[in-house]
């Protein structure tokens, strides 16, 4: 039937050892009145039938749509080696490395991951990953409350709207406040953000590139925040970090983000991983697992889970977070992705995204009636204004197998004609040119 190996003979002999007359007898501690009233599931399938069934479902998943959509999740190239290595059974069928001597594989990989995140973000201490980008921003917000012992964060509304919803939900339960600062046009209102910071502010949370695609300079904001002993939390897009200044360079205290773009497929929403990194002085306030370097009695280097006194299995309700599992396997993919591209390749990849998006900008903005709403620096996303409701236009183009972008009306009042377009290295010039044609058609024919 399933995967239970014991044969009737085994079962008989085991019951004899136990001293029970039947398997059912082992459940006799469960009062009769508590037994399941229903368990109405269909009979099982064989592997062949299951595979067929699942392939049917997968055939209707839009995988052949050409995606100019991003908005936090990106269709990037994933080197074959990533899959091959992350598919090593010893990695993916292991548990949390609680017994370090038989988990040096996972532990060293997570240590290398933490090192990679530190180098990407320009920070000094990273944990071993969080659930996803949205919860990572929320954990950073909570972390700032713990560090500053304050109860308010300033939340730039140019931060990914999905992430903001998660942050407000997390803060709500703790009676902390998230003050949102609306964008000015299609960009962060840096002046209002600066003005909002006061002695009650635990942190300012911003994103670069922001949800409209703008690459931003937060140096002044950092300075202002630090003047008020508030923290600067920067959410960032790791691929962009191959080209744009890191949160560390900008003066951030905590860098967070969605790690998906590093070697994880889009996979209808997950699993991905969130990352969080900070200055070394805040390390004890990090949520989640952290791997540290140490030695054994022969002075051989080894790695262990460390600073566990922050965590729920030790500190229970006084833990820095309730998080238990991390996203090890996804983080491992991120690590291998970064190492596969390497110093030079990672920069080239970022530049390629930039070049393609700049090309797309020029081509699309020259479509009649279309304007660029993000006029400044962008990375691989930008926002267009269309002469009509973007939703209708997107729907029309989608019928041709191209997802033209994310209409912003759903996320920002009054932006019904704004369209967020994403262009990764996987989009060819031909695809970009075709999008321009389709856009023109959808608008004017």
């Amino acid at each position: 039937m399933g995967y239970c190996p014991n044969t009737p003979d085994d079962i008989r002999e085991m019951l004899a050892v136990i001293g029970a007359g039947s398997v059912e007898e082992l459940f006799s501690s469960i009062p009769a009145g508590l037994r399941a009233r229903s368990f109405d599931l269909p009979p099982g399938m064989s592997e062949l039938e299951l595979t067929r069934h699942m392939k049917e479902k997968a055939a209707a998943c839009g995988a052949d749509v050409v995606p100019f959509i991003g908005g936090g999740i990106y269709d990037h190239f994933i080197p074959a080696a990533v899959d091959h290595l992350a598919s090593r059974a010893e990695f993916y069928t292991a548990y949390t490395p609680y017994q370090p001597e038989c988990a040096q594989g996972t532990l060293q990989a997570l240590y290398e991951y933490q090192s990679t995140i530190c180098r990407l973000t320009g920070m000094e201490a990273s944990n071993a990953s969080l659930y996803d980008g949205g919860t990572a921003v929320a954990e950073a917000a909570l972390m700032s409350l713990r560090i500053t012992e304050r109860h308010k964060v300033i939340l730039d509304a140019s931060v990914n709207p999905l992430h903001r919803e998660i942050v407000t939900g997390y803060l709500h339960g703790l009676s902390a406040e998230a003050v949102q600062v609306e964008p000015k046009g299609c960009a962060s209102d840096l002046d209002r953000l600066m003005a909002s910071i006061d002695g009650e502010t635990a942190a300012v949370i911003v994103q670069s590139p922001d949800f409209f695609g703008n690459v931003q300079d937060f140096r002044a904001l950092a300075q202002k925040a630090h003047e008020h002993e508030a923290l600067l939390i920067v959410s960032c897009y790791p691929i962009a970090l191959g080209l744009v200044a890191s949160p560390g360079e900008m003066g951030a205290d905590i860098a967070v983000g969605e790690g998906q773009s590093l070697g994880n497929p889009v996979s209808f929403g997950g699993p991905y991983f969130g990352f969080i990194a900070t200055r070394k002085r805040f390390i004890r306030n990090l949520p989640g697992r952290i791997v540290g370097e140490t030695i054994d009695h022969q002075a051989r280097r080894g790695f262990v889970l460390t600073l566990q006194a922050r965590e729920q299995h030790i500190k229970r309700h006084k833990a820095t977070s309730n998080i238990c599992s991390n996203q090890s396997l996804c983080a491992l993919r991120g690590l291998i992705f970064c190492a596969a591209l390497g110093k030079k390749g990672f920069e080239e990849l970022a530049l390629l995204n930039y070049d393609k998006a700049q090309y797309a900008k020029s081509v699309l903005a020259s479509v009649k009636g279309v304007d660029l709403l993000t006029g400044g620096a962008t990375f691989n996303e930008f926002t267009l204004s269309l002469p009509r409701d973007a939703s209708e236009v997107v729907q029309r183009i989608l019928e041709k197998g191209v997802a033209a972008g994310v209409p912003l009306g759903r996320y920002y009042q009054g932006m019904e004609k704004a369209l967020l377009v994403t262009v990764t290295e996987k989009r060819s010039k031909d695809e970009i040119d075709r999008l321009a044609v389709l856009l023109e058609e959808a608008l004017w024919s």
Partner: protein
Amino acid sequence: MELIFEKSVSGRCGVRVPLSDVPKATPLSEALRRQEPVRLPEVSELDLVRHYTNLSRRNFSVDTNFYPLGSCTMKYNSKVNEDVGALFAGCHPVLALIPGGESLVQGPLSLIHGLERQLAEITGMDEVTTQPLAGAHGEMTGIMVIAAYHKARGDNKRKYVIVPDSSHGTNPASAAMAGYEIVTVPTAPYGDMDLDLYRKAMNEEVAAVMLTCPNTLGLFNPHIAEICAIAHEAGALTYYDGANLNAILGKVRPGDVGFDVIHVNLHKTFSTPHGGGGPGSGPIGVRGDLVRYLPTPRVVRRKDGVFAVEDHPEGIGRVSDFFGNFGIMVRAYAYITMLGREGLIEVSEQAVLNANYMMARLKEEYELPFDQTCMHECVFSASRQVEHGVHAIDVAKYLVDRGFHPPTVYFPLNVKEAIMIEPTETESRQTMDAFIEVMLEAARLARENPERLHEAPVTTPVGRLDETRAAKAQQVCCE
């Protein structure tokens, strides 16, 4: 082994980046650019592959070793589930959120809906959401739903959540994340939460009680219905930690027993390899009047049979970006579909049989604090071995030398020198016998040659590591 960074050679390349088919753009301004390239390792693809292949070989894992880690359900997960999990890799979640996109992703939407229905039937709940990304995340989401429920009723005085002292650490931590204060009730001598103390702790300021059943000792609490009734009488809700659901599939449904909210660890019970610590997935199920507070969005089946993504305006808001860890959900759906009703019942029966067999064979040598029929796991104490100066950790490390991953040790906290063994249903009697032999050998060695246990492990790339040094050094990334 060297770090990948230590294998880096300046100028060496790994995977080649695609060539550009567009013109070079005007560069970003200096102020916005990073000052130097990210110091990533510079290795060839061969170096990369050899490094991580060899690194993987420094792990124990289910596919290579018996891994009876109590409370973690390290069962075998069929390879076909990995393959079907990969089928949806190219499906962009934002497609479901743009106009016209829903119709293109009916496959994954129907799968989410189907899994929610399966889990509702399995747990006896009315509705399920797959959004939480892990067990602890499910707990927090569940408690937030409970908070929303009380609040909607104007019941604003409740500020406590009760947990037993044997609970998983995530329970109090999750309740605290949702803004509650924690009341911890001790374990009674009979192994369950002390019923009298619980009764005393329960009052109209309590929002919920969180329970694991079977509890972390692997015992089914016969008073569970009473505990629920006591809570409900006081207007509190009951939360079921589904970590141990593997023990009761088809036997007990928390919804039938009186629980209001449950989370399910898909990665424990429903076929996801643990990935070295994640990803997991922690859907929650709720009773009828709590459905409205579930997080947004919801995947619904419209009257015309088409699946749609709908906002859920009265809910607690969003807890994860999209629909949860979809890849994990695919595996769970495949697992439930492949095993079917009978297969799932067999899971709990064989899990319980295996644990009782383990218990029966080891209890002569190892102290069994609660000697009664267990469910899917059993908890011993190394207290007899301590008399010889041997601790649970020493037994654990000796097992490593003999090729077995150790059981969970020092948890639950209410048993001293705890050794918590969960064989799972996928292990054969023969594998358990081999493990039992080594456990008995360890007990013998504890009497005759404790030094051998103290020096273990000797077969691993490193011996016991200095954790204090690690915590002091705080060396968490390489320079």
